[in-house]
């Protein structure tokens, strides 16, 4: 049926193949050959950047799709049907299939469950069986889909710009290996990103067996070297720290954004959130940091300070808490009040607390954290240690220096780069780009022909993770097999294939490589069964690495502490902070429109990064938000717009990495934001003193989705302490008590769909926003239109600053989508019945009936309705159309749209249930936002069954209705955000 396949005959599904007797994944492997559409199919520059000119061109391109809304009243020529020539066994057109796979970011994998229609992956979810995911997925995982179909991805293998075949490259690689044999491969270097993949480790060894002198380097701009160094300092060997926040009653974060970043953030968020609700013993979070992070936003007490002062703070804490360090040098740090209180709170919760140090902090802070945890007896209770999952623990900017030195001195003849875009991400002082010029045989393997590709002789396009065979390991070591969801859309080879080329196996195909590796592993009598299970579950059971108990080396720590204490706190000037970006990470996602248009959780800025300053500092510098300034650090300078952020530390400027890309083909990324790598020093990659900020005089224009910070004293996102909740239940009661009405209640005999959102659990990570965008075919509109207030996200996360001081605000997040009011104000103003109520209480939006008066939006007090001001469908390029969810209508120009509670999922579940002659089970329907939510803040279900969790939450003491006094009777209920401040501090 046409409606199930909006891409029509363009999709090469007719060429899918399957041998009935084979397993599904084999059919996918077959699928992995020969379905790559021809390059010329795509118009030049079809990646739809937000400039109008190209948009016009693309409107013509997509005119047919844009007419979808008209289809009802226009007779069209007969539509073509392209059936399979041989239908794969398990594929019923219109019925999705789900495959387990995994995606590794900086080498650590998150398990995924991917939905696929007729061989087109259309949605990504977390894999419930995977330890790091537990069914959740973050913004990066959710947005993978778009980069898979990104038309800007590299299309061909090139040698000095000219197209080459994979075969040609293999010959070249073989020659290279022969050449290097003479000196054992001394001139051969591999630069990869940290990777826990067993297969890659194996290839690594095999290359060394052939060429013992070959050298392997790892580089990731956001690598967490300091953590391993800290462990080495504390325990004598690098160890991986695993925190179990679900056991911690008191959490002290020393500049650690464990909710917003880090390899295991999804699990951390889940566990942390589980302690933020009254059902469990409420935990208390202290955060010490400079720039306001997601973790800082969740803090019960937050202490702003320069990143460089955190070490002193940690020292002070350690001295109070760990007797083993007593008698050490007395730090000149004037111990602040919160420090003592924190210390007391930690002491009161020995074995039930945890101190975590941030990756941005130097090793000593990590060591001190370990020391404190040991002193408090938290080790093996809330925090455990294990052998690192990552083989290469020195991967930060510093680790890159020796390689660059060799490159300059010409000692590197052949350099195989698989690390993402080092020429861009390498610190400026290394000048990796020019060094690369000195390497005669540079081979770059990447998704895009980016800044690095431009400097390399050879370019080999990489397959996207969803197109690749391979394996990966989770933070706890659990192995996942990475299986492809679709044949490479553009010519590409996997990381493994590339390295295999240097052991003469480059032509075997990634599938063979990974399968052979695992076939060779001992202890698997029935390999096929193992393999099948591993693919099906997405994890290899019992492959997690075991934790071990260790004891700190107090003397070493004390010595290091003494040294640090002796060292005066870093000098004057402004301290420049470098932050991982919440959206483009280190810049690798810069061409992903979903992420670029996603509002930053804290600043709500889209399509940009900014130099963050505290109100005080901004005042002192005489700048305000959107002023362009020149930041100078160690003689290197950078122009960036200022954003004044409450809660930011004084005399500190923070800027996110990953912007200001100049990638050749990544048109979306080009010129978005400022490139902080240009001023990032390799010896101080996270924060450096002595920066100066000078006002340029020009102003930038931010596209901010929420430029008003406060709630204006309105009862929107309610916050309370458990005590207030006990003492003043009426304050919540009056936000939910039934209001008088003239109307007879409308009966809802069967299901009564409803949602609840627990503000205590929501950490504002925004994964739900991207999930919603992916599930519901929500268009991207570009910076200009976001700035005009025309963003299309059905679900937005409001961020409010509250509290007495604008310098130390309390932050609260509130996801707001259509509330599905039973007395919906939007409905009675629609002149054409385009929005109406279903017999189960859904507020339905009928796109094909909408004429676009926009009256409903005016009358929606929550302002959650979105309008198609232009023809956005027409702007979607061919590959982008392939990712559209066939279960959701494409909206034409001029119609309203909004959250539907994922009605397509409800209807599918209903039909499945009714065909099977049963009712829909509790939990059978998950909305996209709910399914991806790392903290389980969103719950969906039917109120007609009191046992349903959503019904329980609707009856919760913390439940309230948004803008309750209007009497709209929303079906979405909110649960009051709980704070657990320390009485001594409040």
């Amino acid at each position: 049926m046409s409606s199930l396949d909006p891409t029509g005959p363009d999709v090469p599904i007719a060429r899918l193949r399957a041998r009935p007797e084979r397993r599904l994944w084999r059919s996918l492997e077959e699928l992995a050959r020969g379905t790559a559409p021809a390059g010329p199919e795509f118009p030049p520059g079809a990646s739809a950047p937000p400039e109008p000119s190209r948009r016009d061109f693309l409107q013509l391109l997509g005119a047919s799709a844009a007419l979808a809304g008209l289809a009802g009243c226009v007779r069209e020529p007969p539509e073509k049907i392209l059936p399979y020539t041989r239908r794969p066994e398990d594929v019923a057109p219109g019925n999705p299939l789900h495959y387990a796979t995994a995606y590794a970011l900086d080498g650590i994998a998150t398990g995924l469950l991917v939905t696929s229609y007729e061989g087109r992956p259309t949605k990504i979810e977390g894999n419930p069986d995977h330890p790091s995911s537990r069914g959740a997925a973050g913004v990066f995982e959710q947005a993978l889909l778009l980069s898979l179909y990104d038309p800007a991805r590299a299309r061909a293998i090139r040698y000095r710009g000219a197209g080459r075949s994979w075969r040609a490259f293999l010959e070249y690689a073989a020659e290279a290996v022969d050449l290097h044999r003479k000196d054992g491969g001394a001139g051969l270097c591999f630069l990869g990103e940290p990777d826990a993949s067993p297969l890659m480790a194996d290839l690594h060894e095999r290359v060394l067996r052939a060429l013992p002198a070959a050298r392997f380097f790892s580089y990731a701009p956001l690598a967490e070297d300091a953590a391993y160094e800290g462990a080495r300092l504390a325990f004598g060997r690098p160890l991986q720290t695993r925190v179990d926040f679900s056991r911690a009653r008191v959490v002290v974060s020393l500049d650690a954004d464990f909710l917003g970043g880090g390899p295991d953030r999804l699990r951390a968020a889940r566990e942390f959130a589980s302690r933020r609700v009254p059902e469990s013993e409420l935990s208390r979070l202290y955060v010490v940091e400079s720039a306001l992070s997601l973790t800082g936003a969740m803090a019960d007490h937050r202490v702003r300070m320069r990143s460089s002062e955190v070490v002193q703070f940690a020292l002070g804490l350690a001295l109070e808490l760990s007797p083993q360090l007593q008698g050490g040098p007395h730090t000149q740090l004037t111990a602040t009040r919160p420090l003592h209180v924190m210390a007391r709170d930690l002491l009161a919760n020995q074995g039930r607390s945890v101190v975590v140090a941030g990756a941005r902090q130097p090793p000593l802070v990590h060591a001190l954290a370990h020391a404190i945890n040991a002193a408090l007896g938290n080790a093996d209770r809330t925090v455990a240690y294990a052998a690192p999952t990552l083989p290469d623990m020195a991967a930060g900017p510093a680790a890159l220096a020796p390689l660059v030195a060799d490159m300059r001195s010409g000692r590197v003849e052949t350099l195989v780069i698989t690390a993402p875009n080092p020429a861009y991400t390498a610190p400026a002082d290394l000048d990796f780009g020019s060094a690369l010029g000195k390497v005669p045989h540079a081979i770059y393997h990447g998704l895009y022909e980016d800044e690095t590709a431009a400097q390399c002789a050879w370019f080999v396009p990489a397959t996207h993770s969803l197109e690749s065979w391979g394996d990966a390991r989770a933070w706890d070591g659990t192995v996942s097999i990475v299986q492809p969801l679709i044949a490479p859309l553009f010519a590409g080879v996997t990381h493994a294939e590339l390295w295999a080329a240097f052991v003469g196996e480059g032509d075997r195909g990634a599938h063979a490589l990974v399968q052979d590796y695992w076939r060779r592993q001992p202890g698997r009598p029935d390999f096929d069964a193992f393999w099948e299970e591993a693919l099906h579950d997405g994890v290899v059971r019992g492959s997690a690495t075991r934790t071990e108990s260790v004891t700190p080396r107090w003397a070493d720590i004390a010595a290091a502490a003494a040294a640090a204490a002796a060292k005066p706190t870093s000098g004057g000037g402004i301290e420049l902070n470098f932050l991982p970006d919440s959206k483009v990470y280190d810049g690798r996602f810069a061409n992903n429109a979903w992420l670029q248009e996603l509002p930053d959780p804290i600043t709500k800025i889209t399509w940009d990064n900014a130099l963050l300053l505290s109100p005080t500092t901004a005042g002192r510098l005489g700048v305000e938000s959107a002023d362009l300034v020149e930041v100078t650090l160690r003689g290197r300078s950078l122009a960036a717009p200022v954003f004044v952020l409450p809660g930011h530390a004084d005399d500190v400027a923070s800027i996110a990495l990953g912007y200001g890309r100049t990638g050749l083909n990544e048109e979306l990324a080009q010129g978005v934001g400022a490139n902080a790598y240009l001023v990032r020093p390799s010896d101080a990659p996270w924060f450096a003193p002595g920066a100066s900020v000078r006002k340029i005089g020009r102003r930038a224009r931010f596209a901010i989705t929420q430029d008003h910070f406060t709630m204006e004293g309105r009862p929107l996102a309610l916050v309370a302490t458990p005590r207030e909740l006990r003492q003043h239940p009426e304050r919540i009661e009056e936000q939910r008590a039934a209001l008088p009405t003239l109307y007879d209640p409308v009966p809802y005999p069967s299901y009564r769909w409803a949602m609840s959102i627990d503000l205590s659990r929501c950490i504002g990570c925004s994964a739900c926003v991207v999930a919603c965008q992916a599930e519901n075919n929500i268009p991207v509109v570009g910076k200009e239109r976001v700035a005009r207030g025309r963003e299309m996200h059905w679900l937005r996360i409001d961020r409010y600053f509250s509290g007495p001081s604008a310098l130390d605000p309390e932050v609260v997040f509130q996801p707001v989508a259509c509330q599905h009011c039973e007395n919906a104000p939007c409905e009675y103003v629609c002149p054409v019945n385009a929005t109406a109520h279903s017999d189960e209480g859904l507020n339905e939006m009928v796109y094909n009936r909408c004429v676009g008066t926009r009256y409903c939006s005016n009358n929606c007090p929550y302002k959650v309705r979105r309008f198609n001001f232009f023809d956005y469908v027409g702007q979607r390029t061919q590959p982008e159309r392939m990712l559209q969810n066939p279960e959701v209508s494409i909206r034409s120009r001029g119609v309203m749209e909004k959250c539907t509670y994922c009605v397509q999922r409800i209807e599918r579940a209903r039909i499945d249930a009714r065909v099977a002659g049963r009712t829909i089970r509790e939990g059978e329907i998950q909305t996209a936002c709910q399914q991806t939510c790392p903290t389980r803040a969103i719950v969906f279900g039917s109120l007609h069954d009191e046992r349903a969790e959503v019904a329980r939450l609707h009856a919760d003491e913390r439940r309230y209705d948004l803008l309750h006094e209007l009497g709209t009777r929303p079906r979405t209920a909110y649960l009051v955000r709980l704070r657990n401040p320390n009485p001594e501090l409040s």
Partner: protein
Amino acid sequence: MSALFPPWTNTVSRFSLVCLALGGVVGAVLLVLWVESPYFTGQHGPIEQPVQFDHRHHVADDGIDCRYCHSTVETAASAGFPALSVCMNCHGQIWNKSPMLEQVRAAYFSDRAIPWNRVHRLPDFVYFNHSIHVAKGVGCVSCHGRVDQMAQVTQVAPLTMGWCLGCHRAPEPNLRPREEITHLGWRPPTDSGALGHALVAQYDVHTRVSCSTCHR
């Protein structure tokens, strides 16, 4: 004579006024009728297909069940358009030399899909699901007509929303025992009303007219 207008202008003026008035009304009425006419809804004769596939022969003569070719009708939204391999299951053995089937064989062996022309087309914003209708006892014939008597398939139902609503508001007349779903010639027993109501109860038929039933 000095009158500005000759006498006949009286008749003309009145006549033209009447025409003006009637013209508007009649035009509107015709428009309303036209959009529901077979010509507009597409019930206007068969649609040419690349291959002369004759349902009369396959269904009536050979007695092949609908589900043999449209195999996902009970499990999926789409009834399933038969893959060429399905054709070849039989025509690999019989008529495997027939020139009529040359195109089919060529397509099959060259692995190229034959571009058929859609006959029953719903707009893209309508989500029709075969499986649920079949499961609740709606026969193929109710919407597709006596395909077993069609040389080339023709759209017999208007497929307008009004037509859909008709059945969703009163499904009884269109229900039949599940085992008769694909039996195109099936006639309900004398008092079809009673059977309809019985089946509604038996199959727990619960037709909905909420927008999201079909529009998402």
